[in-house]
């Protein structure tokens, strides 16, 4: 009877989740399989040549432009992740440990608001700030710090890193904050009672227990940043373009969807394996040693 009850509950669960699951399979799994298949085809004028070939991948490896763009996307995403996580950790720590309980929700709300305002406009505003006649240059000239406008601010990879770090900042704070909130405060008291300094307690108790949040934050920034299109296009200039700009060019400009698909699949594979590697390497952090 108990087993029967369990089975009905499972069945009810499957029925309940099925509309969302079917939708996601049709609109996510099927399309992802489709671009993997497409990446093994080639473009033959207006038609696809459906014979399976590795030609696109061979081109992706042999033509240096793709390697350059992929390499740049990876280091930009790495730099953005590092900057956002390092800058975000003290904020998450401050809200979790120093803000009174009843004000925490307000702080988190204030931090997340910019995330909900138009991404396109936020990126564009950085172009306005960093540009040749932009806000920063005109202000600095206005108060007489510089004579000529600074030209190294815009249209390079640094501008892309600054803009993306700003755009993804709220995204990193939340997972770290959630991990810090879960820490049992009596563990910290115990560490202090047993003779650890404040810094020692932070390093040996708080930080390891916060690591799951830091890892989640890393993934939640690194993966989408690799595929960012708007920021490199608006503030990157020719030397700040990333892999997604090339994917867009292949699909919409050069009319070579299979090549674009091969680049998209390559990017996903590289990012996916890096993410899995990170999760694997850090799987024991924050757990008690056996």
């Amino acid at each position: 009877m108990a087993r029967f009850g369990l089975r009905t509950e499972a069945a009810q669960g499957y029925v309940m989740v099925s509309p969302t699951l079917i939708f996601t399979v049709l609109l996510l799994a099927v399309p992802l399989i489709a671009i993997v298949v497409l990446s093994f085809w080639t473009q033959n004028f207006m038609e696809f040549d459906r014979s399976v070939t590795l030609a696109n991948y061979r081109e992706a490896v042999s033509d240096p432009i793709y390697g350059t763009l992929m390499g740049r996307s990876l280091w930009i995403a790495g730099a953005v992740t590092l900057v956002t996580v390092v800058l975000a950790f003290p904020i998450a720590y401050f809200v979790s440990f120093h803000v009174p309980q009843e004000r925490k929700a307000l702080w988190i709300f204030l931090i997340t608001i910019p995330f909900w305002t138009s991404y396109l406009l936020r990126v564009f505003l950085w172009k306005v700030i960093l540009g040749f006649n932009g806000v920063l240059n005109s202000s600095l000239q206005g108060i007489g710090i510089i004579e000529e406008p600074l030209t190294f601010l815009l249209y390079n990879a640094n501008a892309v890193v600054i803009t993306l770090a700003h755009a993804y900042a709220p995204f990193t704070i939340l997972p770290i904050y959630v991990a810090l909130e879960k820490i049992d405060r009596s563990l910290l008291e115990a560490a202090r009672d047993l003779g650890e300094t404040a810094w020692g307690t932070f390093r040996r108790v708080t930080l390891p227990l916060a690591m799951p949040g830091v890892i989640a934050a890393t993934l939640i920034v690194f993966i989408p940043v690799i595929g960012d299109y708007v920021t490199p296009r608006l503030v990157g200039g020719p030397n700040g373009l990333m892999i997604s700009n090339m994917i867009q060019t292949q699909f919409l400009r050069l009319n070579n969807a299979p090549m674009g698909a091969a680049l998209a699949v390559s990017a996903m594979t590289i990012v996916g394996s890096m993410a899995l590697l990170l999760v694997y390497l850090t799987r024991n952090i924050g757990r008690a040693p056996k």
Partner: protein
Amino acid sequence: MSGRVLRIYAILYLVFLYLPVLLLPVFAFNDGTIIAFPLNGFTTAWFAELVAIPALHEALGNSLIIATVTAMLSTTLGVFAARASTRFQFPGKAGIMGFIMVPLVLPEIIVAVSLLVVLLQLGLSLSIWSVILGHTLICTPFCIAILSSSFSGLDRSLEEAAIDLGETRLSAFRLVILPLVTPGIIAALLISFTISLDEFIIAFFLTGTEPTLPVYIWSQLRFPQKLPVIMALGTLLILLSLILIGSAEMLRRRGLHKSGQKDAGGFL
């Protein structure tokens, strides 16, 4: 001591987060065609100009239709998934829920090109509907995150009591569960509406001949003389987002209060 240093840092950080957005109204009301300091004078001309651009109104109309339908679809799908994950135990639940949440981290360009490939291969033409499908896919995980916290706080004995007193499963859901999670549902509607209204990449790839508002803005960004008008438009859009998100946050808190939960902060 360290608390004070952290507080100063936190305030500086908030200033950094808000600074770019605060520039929008500054230049929207500035009487000059160049977006730079020093400012020239106060004008509302750029806002007045917004009224006289038919292409903009068309894009706004498309965006509102897309955002409304997306909000309803993704919230409905979110209710199913959140209810399933909080009320029932079934084998493979973690995997299934993880899979449904994937669009949250997947780069949007991947979602966009893969949907584009399938739609074109099926011989379907791009329209408002293709954008709606793409937006529903990326909004559903956000809805699930919000709704899960509404559903997870519910006391199961309330529902069981209703059934013992003669209600069916469906009517117990409608009469007992639904009123308790209504704030969460409205919050999910508002959030997904906001995401859809702002989303650019998927709309850019899937829009066909009916541009959304962000796609229209994108097309205007390369004309310097159009920028003050875009600043005015952006100011209005950000005000709208703030109102929507502020209402969603208030509802979320009220919902938590109603079902007697502690506020853990934030939507996600």
